[in-house]
């Protein structure tokens, strides 16, 4: 297995490491210079791709659509052009009934573009469900330090599947916002262990929010995507009724449990300290209860 750490790579490096060699064909690549009309007016540098690379590729010969967000550009945030690229990609995937994979790295809506990016994310969320209705699997890969927050957290939660590494986090309000709002005693955003146990891959996998938890390597991420490509979960009434019960039970059981270690223990982790240090594959095989 290659040990290239997924979280250390940039968007296009991630794509190159995951897809079949030479298979990525970018749509509206940077030389086209389709970019934000807002940022120049605010005196902020633009990116020629508006912080997202989209296109077609294949993994193990299976064709798919793929997007990778550029965390280095305004936190991977979603503005008007960025969101329109996402929407176009999702609608293409629904039309062609091909899987759509997101390499997510985003703090959410780009504040500098105000409501424009917000509406764009709302359009993208509807387009995710166009894919699900068409039987085109949608997969959010969450393995970067920025993670999937705000509207991108909600969008990722709407996909068929989430593949996470322990570096990945998913949420809506980030730790700094919560600390500002609730005070440092409620959430110390500098407590890295608590930040990752609150929203990180291991906790999400244990709770059943991430379908796969894999090691922080590009090979493990690629294999994980491959294992999810041929499945699709179109939601129906039976599915959402079961989900309602499941999420209600979770809230009833843990709604007043602020300690993540207590949740891990209640979910069947016998040695929380050792599980905390374990690599993802070891965590799944030796610590987490077996999924039915």
């Amino acid at each position: 297995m290659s040990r290239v750490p997924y979280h250390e790579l940039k968007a296009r490096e991630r794509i190159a490491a995951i897809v079949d060699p030479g298979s990525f064909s970018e749509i509206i690549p940077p030389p086209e210079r389709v970019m934000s009309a807002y940022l120049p007016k605010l005196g902020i540098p633009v990116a020629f791709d508006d912080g997202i690379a989209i296109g077609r590729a294949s993994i193990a010969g299976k064709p798919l659509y793929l997007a990778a967000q550029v965390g280095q550009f305004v936190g991977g945030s979603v503005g008007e052009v960025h969101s329109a690229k996402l929407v176009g990609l999702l609608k293409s995937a629904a039309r062609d009934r091909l899987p759509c994979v997101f390499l997510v790295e985003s703090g959410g809506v780009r504040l500098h573009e105000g409501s424009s990016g917000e509406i764009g994310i709302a359009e993208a969320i509807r387009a995710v469900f166009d894919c699900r209705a068409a039987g085109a699997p949608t997969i959010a890969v969450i393995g970067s330090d920025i993670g999937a927050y705000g509207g991108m957290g909600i969008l990722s939660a709407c996909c068929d599947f989430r593949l996470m590494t322990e570096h990945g986090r998913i949420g809506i309000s980030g730790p700094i916002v919560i600390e500002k709002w609730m005070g440092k005693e409620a959430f110390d955003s500098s407590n890295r262990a608590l930040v990752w146990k609150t929203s990180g891959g291991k906790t999400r996998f244990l709770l059943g929010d991430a379908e796969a938890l894999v090691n922080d390597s590009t090979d493990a991420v690629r294999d994980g995507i491959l294992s999810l490509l041929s499945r699709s979960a179109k939601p129906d009434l039976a599915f959402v009724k079961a989900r309602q019960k499941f999420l209600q039970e979770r809230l009833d059981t843990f709604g007043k449990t602020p300690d993540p270690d207590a949740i891990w223990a209640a979910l069947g982790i016998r040695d929380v300290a050792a599980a905390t240090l374990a690599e993802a594959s070891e965590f799944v095989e030796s610590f987490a209860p077996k999924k039915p």
Partner: protein
Amino acid sequence: MTNLLARFFGDSASGITLTDKIATGYASLNGSAVCVIGTVEGTYINDAAALLLSAQVLDCIESKPGMPIVMLVDSAGQEPNRTAEMLGLPFYFGHLLTCLEVAREAGHKLVTVATGKAIGGAFLCYGMFADAIYALDSASLGLMPVEAMSAVTKIPVATLQELSKTLPALEFGAGPFALLGGVMEVWPTDDSLPAKLSAAIDAATTEDTRALLGKERGGRPQALDVQQRVLAESAA
């Protein structure tokens, strides 16, 4: 708040239950039965609130086949709370959206009216998912007020206010949001509301026209073109 519900639903507003500022129930609109889910008085929305709303959507799908679902939005946002995040707040919101999608596919029309605050994640997690979205002229729609935007982006308030004159995306309110295509129409708060909402339900289709409206109205000039360009190039 009961006044506002009565404006839309008259005496039948008594069929709507308020639980911690979360509205759920059935009511009569211009003589036709509708399902109502909503937030009132600018309340923050959290995991428990999302489950109350989704439970009502599920009840409607099961017991009132095809009945339109009216979504009223008056919420200042999602509650910033670490325990809620740990329990997976995006998944509670995602579940609510999935329930609404199952309703849409089962033939329920989904129409939103932003009646007060319709901000950030609280608007995204149900109201913005409708077939058609409307707003009262007094409503406060947007990502966040310029003061909050300034605090995070470090761009002075005065600069943002000046720019918002030509960039409606930066301005807060029903009118600017309509220019972006985010709402179809802005309504005055008067006696015509029941008839307007009733007509809006009749006219609603499942097609998402927001990018088209944003381009036509000039507030979001790039979105439609970029979407269509991606679709064209991916088909080539």
